[in-house]
């Protein structure tokens, strides 16, 4: 068994026990990247020299702790662990592109808080991963650079927008990764790549240093191979940050995952998520997963989230509207390449026209229209009101149940190019991840089976805002009662 087959938790235990070093783990990941990334294209910017320097520093710290046993309790679980970071998060002195050509040469002058917290915990960063441009997409096909391939079948998408991070973890190029989730962009690629992905509650992880897409929706979270791994990363990421005015001071819960059973846990199954159009294998796998949860002692209750069908139009008005404002700063003035024009106006028009991709332009225009004079109330205003109704659906549901179980996506990984001609068909991939995003709650995606093409299927566990420990505990119980997490792609 290769070092890269270890889970993050196992690798951490071996480091503490002196059975391996951070440099060994790092070199193993770098070798994996060297061997497979020319095909998979998970990484935009590998950070090889940085990783080796960080690994040596981590090994020095570990050696110091071993010499000073009284310091041993300060050895953090993530020290020395190689991770990958989605390229929408700034890492100081490293190229950060958000998957866009408009930031092709941008070198971040500072580090995002979420990344800094991991660095403070002693991690090693092996590289910045590919994503849909400005996190807009469900397949990573909208990246301005390349299309990342699904390690389970390179003719298929890894999902999006955090496709690079998901592929990197599934292909054992890193022991975990950071992604972001605005409408499903952690959960759906985790599902398509057969790994664990946690969308944290809005306000749980600081957005300082995250290149913004939808400011009322963006959340940062971990992708990893097991629930325990994701929980470790979550604990390091979460917490209030005075630099993010939307960061909540809510205490970070203890997510120790001791209890293996779910007695006393009420699980809601929303009828609106089991509808025609869901791939048969997906529905089967998720329903079977619910039976496993029940066998573990959970009480399963059918619930209704009546405004589910409105989430898609609400999201595709609010998110583009917010994006149109957030992306106004990319104009060739202060950073990024500039298309010279005779006038300032030409410079703006040409820089943006040349450098933004089609999906980004589409969403900027949709958002601009929704906010424009004469249309604001009918589109954006109405969407915000329906958002209230969607949030209320979840508030009501969580009075009856502790966790909601449902599919992550209506399908397994589709073929590259299959949905790129029809934007609306692509948007429909998000129907089960959008409502929780609009409500700002937390959601875990974890493997629960395969379809006939041996493509992974994800189970989505939703919890109330700031209730991550609920979905992590339920997820852990399910994972430990099954074998899906032990399976990996044949590379």
């Amino acid at each position, binding site marked *: 068994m290769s070092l890269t087959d270890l889970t993050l938790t196992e690798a951490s235990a071996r480091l503490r026990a002196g059975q391996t070093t951070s440099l060994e783990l790092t070199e193993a990941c770098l070798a994996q990247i060297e061997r497979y990334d020319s095909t998979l294209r998970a990484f935009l910017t590998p950070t090889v020299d940085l990783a080796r320097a960080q690994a040596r520093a981590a090994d020095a710290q570990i050696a110091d702790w071993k010499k000073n046993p009284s310091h041993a309790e300060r050895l953090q679980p993530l020290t020395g662990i190689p991770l990958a970071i989605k390229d929408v998060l700034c890492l100081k002195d490293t190229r950060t592109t958000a998957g866009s050509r408009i930031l092709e040469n941008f070198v971040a002058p500072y580090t995002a808080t979420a990344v800094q917290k991991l660095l403070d915990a002693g991690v090693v960063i092996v590289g910045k991963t590919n994503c849909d441009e400005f996190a807009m997409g469900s397949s990573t096909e909208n990246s301005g650079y390349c299309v990342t391939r699904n390690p389970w079948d390179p003719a298929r998408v890894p999902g999006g927008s955090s496709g690079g991070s998901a592929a990197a973890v599934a292909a054992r190029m890193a022991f975990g990764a950071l992604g972001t989730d605005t409408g499903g962009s952690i959960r759906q690629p985790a599902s398509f790549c057969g790994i664990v992905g946690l969308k944290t509650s809005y*306000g749980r992880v600081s957005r300082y240093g995250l290149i913004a897409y939808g400011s009322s929706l963006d959340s940062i979270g971990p992708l990893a191979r097991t629930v325990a791994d994701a929980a470790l990363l979550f604990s390091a990421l979460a917490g209030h940050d005075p630099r993010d005015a939307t960061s909540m001071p809510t205490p970070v819960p203890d997510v120790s995952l001791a209890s293996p059973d779910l007695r006393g846990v009420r699980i809601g199954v929303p009828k609106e998520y089991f509808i025609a159009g869901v791939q048969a294998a997906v529905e089967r796998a998720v329903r079977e997963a619910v039976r496993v949860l029940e066998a573990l002692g959970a009480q399963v209750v059918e619930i209704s989230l009546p405004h589910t069908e409105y989430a898609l*139009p609400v999201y595709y008005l609010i998110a583009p509207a917010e994006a149109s404002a957030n992306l106004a700063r990319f104009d060739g003035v*202060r950073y990024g390449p500039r298309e010279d024009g005779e006038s300032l106006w030409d410079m703006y028009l040409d820089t943006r026209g040349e450098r933004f991709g089609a999906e980004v332009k589409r969403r900027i225009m949709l958002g601009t229209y929704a906010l424009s004079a004469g249309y604001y109330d009918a589109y954006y205003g109405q969407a915000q009101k329906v958002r209230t109704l969607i949030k209320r659906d979840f508030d009501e549901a969580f009075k009856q149940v502790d966790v909601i179980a449902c599919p992550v996506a209506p399908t397994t990984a589709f073929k590259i190019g299959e949905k790129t001609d029809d934007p609306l068909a692509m948007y429909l991939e998000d129907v089960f991840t959008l409502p929780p995003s609009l409500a700002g709650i937390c959601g875990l995606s974890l493997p629960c089976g395969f379809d006939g093409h041996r493509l992974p299927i994800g189970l989505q566990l939703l919890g109330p805002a700031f209730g991550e420990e609920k979905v992590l505990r339920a997820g852990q119980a399910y994972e430990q009662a099954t074998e899906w997490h032990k399976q990996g792609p044949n590379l």
Partner: protein
Amino acid sequence: MPLTLAEVEHIAALARLRLSDEEKARYRDQLSAILDYMAKLKELDTSAIEPTATVLPLRTVLRPDTVTPSLTPAELLANAPEAEAEMFRVPPVLE
């Protein structure tokens, strides 16, 4: 109801996007289809519903009005396509 070419051009101007004729035609079709789908929201009676601008209970988070260290002008100009004397250089703002 489909968007007109003039509306697409107006939106593109507001968004400071230069579009080719082919792009204008394509976005007109795609945006029209998407906006038709959005009309679904009219099915709901929201007359008594408050809009949600944020899901959090936070409002107007303040900090003390004190100067704290930030990035230096040199760091901030490092990515500038054109810079001069601690300023970003651009084509004339006013003709």
